[in-house]
Each structure stands twice: as structure tokens, then as C-alpha cells.
């Protein structure tokens, strides 16, 4: 694990729909780690991810990715982004979708097969995405984020609706990618998934509630499981 910082946010403020989606958020993400972005829905997880990949208008504060301002054109080839709703073409097959994104990203045709294997969709490769199950569609979307072999992977709830076996396999893949030097930011509203992460960022109502490794957070809150720990932190913040 390196100590290089992949993402640095300083007093970041984002306003969406008239309310503060992110408020005075300062945080860092270490390169080559799996960082979990946790918090209840509406806590600002997706907004932070959108800001990091450069599609979110920022009100104030600074956000730098690999030393460059978020949204810089030079960052686009280096970031893979999976949105919360599967953003792939429903009327194309799995392979057609990935071939398109591979061409746009100038990735090889071989890479298409690799990512289809990586997300376990070999048997579905020639099926039209609209006819797949929700979990399978999410995996096509994940594969599209992987296709360009990005240095930073920003994955918005990649494991929602997946069965436990697939969830385990995907988390194993995330850990493996981090071992190869990729930085991953993975959001979830299931606290249980936090144990797979090296570092955690806990968000609540657009503010950073706590950071640290899963063990540190457990120790600090005195709670055995992270769900309880999170609740204690929220109660503490309210007081």
C-alpha cells in the first residue's frame, strides 16, 4: 500500500436541487487501496463520486485527483466510473455494449473478453441487456467501467441486488485490483460490506462523519459491528 494520495478534497461544497449535497467536505483517498464510501441513501455518496469523476458542478472548495483538478480532460482516460443505475445500452448485447466502450477508450478487443470474464457474464455475452436480470445489468455496467483499465475506479453501489457468491467474488476482484495498484472508491449503504475495505469514509447528510480503517472505527465507537458503530457516530453528531 502506497502513501500517495489519489484524491484530495478540501472544504468541498456541492449544491444539488437547492440543498447542500456536500458540505465542507475534506477527505483523502490513498492510491492503491479499496476505500469504502458508506452512509445512508441521500447522504451525498453519489454526489461525491460524480464530483470526483468530473461530471458534477462544484460550488466551492477544491477537489484534486492525481494532483489535477477534478474534471480535467487529462483525467478522463484514467478514471472508470460506474453509475448507480446501470448506464449501458439496453437494446444492445453485452458484447456489443462493451465493444463500443472499448472502441471509444481505444482498448483492445481482447479486453472485452477479459472484462466479460471478470464479471462472470460469459454465458450472457450475446444476450440483449434489456433481457438480463437487474444484477446482470449492473455487472455489464461494471464491466464497462473496467474496460479502459483505469487507475481510479469509482463504483456507485456495484454490489446492490447481487447474490452473496457474486458479491464475494466482486469484492475479491476489487482487492486484487487494488493489489495491482488500482485505486478503488466503492459506495454502499450496507455497512456489512465495509469489512472488505482498507479505508472507510462515512458520510451523513453531506458531511464527513468519520474516516479510518474498519478496525479503527470499530475500536473508536466501541461497537462490534459497523452498523452499530455508524448509528453511534450519527447519534454523537446530533448531540
Amino acid at each position: 500500500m502506497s502513501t500517495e494520495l489519489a484524491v484530495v478534497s478540501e472544504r468541498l461544497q456541492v449544491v444539488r436541487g437547492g440543498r447542500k449535497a456536500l458540505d465542507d467536505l475534506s477527505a483523502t483517498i490513498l492510491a492503491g487501496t479499496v476505500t469504502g464510501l458508506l452512509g445512508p441513501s441521500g447522504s451525498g455518496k453519489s454526489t461525491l463520486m460524480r464530483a470526483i469523476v468530473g461530471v458534477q458542478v462544484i460550488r466551492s472548495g477544491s477537489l484534486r485527483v492525481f494532483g489535477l483538478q477534478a474534471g480535467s480532460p487529462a483525467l478522463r482516460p484514467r478514471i472508470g466510473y460506474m453509475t448507480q443505475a446501470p448506464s449501458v445500452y439496453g437494446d444492445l448485447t453485452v458484447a456489443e455494449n462493451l465493444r463500443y466502450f472499448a472502441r471509444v477508450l481505444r482498448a483492445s478487443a481482447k479486453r472485452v473478453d477479459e472484462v466479460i470474464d471478470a464479471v462472470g457474464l460469459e454465458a450472457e455475452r450475446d444476450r440483449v441487456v434489456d433481457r438480463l436480470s437487474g444484477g446482470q445489468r449492473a455487472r455489464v455496467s461494471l464491466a464497462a467501467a473496467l474496460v479502459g483499465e483505469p487507475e481510479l475506479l469509482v463504483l456507485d453501489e456495484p454490489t446492490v441486488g447481487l447474490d452473496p457468491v457474486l458479491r464475494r467474488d466482486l469484492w475479491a476482484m476489487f482487492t486484487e485490483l487494488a493489489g495491482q495498484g488500482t485505486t478503488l472508491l466503492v459506495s454502499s449503504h450496507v455497512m456489512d460490506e465495509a469489512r472488505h475495505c482498507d479505508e472507510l469514509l462515512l458520510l451523513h447528510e453531506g458531511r464527513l462523519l468519520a474516516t479510518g480503517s474498519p478496525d479503527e472505527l470499530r475500536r473508536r465507537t466501541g461497537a462490534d459491528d459497523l452498523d452499530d458503530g455508524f448509528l453511534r457516530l450519527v447519534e454523537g453528531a446530533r448531540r
Partner: protein
Amino acid sequence: MSPSAAWATALRVFAQLRRDPRTIALLMIVPVALVTLLKYMFIDSPGVFERIGVPLLGLFPFIAMFLITSITMLRERTTGTLERLMAMPVAKIDLLLGYGIAFATVAAIQATLVSLVAFGLLDLHTSGPRWLVVFLAVTNAVLGMALGLLLSAFARTEFQAVQFMPAFVFPQILLCGLIVPRDQMAQLLEIAGAFLPLTYAYDALQRVGHDVIDARLALDVAIVLAVTLVALALGAATLRRQTP
């Protein structure tokens, strides 16, 4: 700009169309059926079919591509694929170019097919060159595409996008001179027509129909192309990299 990204986008749009054979059938059969209907509606007054036949051949692709582009772009916006592409190293111009290549090809096929039927089977006459009718049909299709792209930014649902058709296309058809010659309109309407791009598209087509190949025809085509470029530039501006 990267030709490979534009070409990849064109191939992707073709693949999407191929998955939807019913739309292709509608695109190809409906104009042919309508032209045939017109022919037999005016069987006892052939002058009418002669007068409106050629302009209609060139206007069908405009209407079809306006609708198809506004719906396709709206889908791209609402399903999140546009956000994904905007986060990728792809230039907006390449996306637009890709769409342009795909839809212009479809328009060319549509215009060729309906021209073959009209000139070959329905005895439609044109004094001007037939290839010029097909060429104008394709430029009008690209105009329809550019306007559809621009207007898709103002629709939130497909229902709204479909309603843009009567809102933006019908007035242009009414005022372009196809139904009543523009010099017979109330002056206010005649002036209003001068600000609508379809007026020039129609004027070019009816000039070719009468084999009037002159500077005014060239000006008509130039105006249609200029409006297309402006609409594309404004449409590209609505494809935002960053959204609030």
C-alpha cells in the same frame, strides 16, 4: 476529435437500429405508403401530385430524423449513458458526428427508396435531376437531426419529446409554402416563414422540381446548412460535461 470514436458511435447506433426492425420497417414503408396515398388522392387532379410530390420526398427524412434523434438523445440523457460518455475521453463532436453518419445513412436509404417508388412506379415527374432531390433530402435529414438534438435538451420525458413534433415541425410545414404559396399568405405569416429553416428546404426542393438550378437554390442550401451547424453547435452546448 477522433474519427475512430465517431465511427464507433455510428456503428453502435446502427447496431441499435438493427435490434429494432419494426422502426426500420416504419421508416422505410410509411413514406412510401404516404406518397402512394397522395398519388391516388389526387388521381383526378394530377397537377397537385406533381406540385407537392417532389418537395414531400425531401421533407419526409426531415420529420423522421427529427423524431428519431430527439428520442434517441433523450434516452441517452435519461439512462445515464451520456453521463458515462461525458466522463470518458470522448469529444462531443465525435458523438455528434457518429450520430450524423448513422442517421444521414438511414435518411439516404429512406429518400432513395421513396424516390425510386415515386419516380419509378407512381410516375412522378421532375424536370430537375433526381439525384439532387435525394441529396436535398439528406441535407434536410441532417437539419432534422440537428434540431431534434437541440430540442431533446428541453424534454424530460419521451412524451414531451414527441410533442415537440407538432410544436416545432408542423408550423414549419404550414408556413414553408407547401400548402399555400408564401406570397399568398398574410404578410405577417410570410415574414414568419422567412425565419424558419424548412422554408428554405422547401424552396430548394420545389426549384429542383421545376429544374430551376440557380443562385437562389445554392443560397437555400447554404441557409439550411448554416442553420444545421448553428443547431448542432447549440445542441453540443447542451451536452454538458458537468451538471448541477
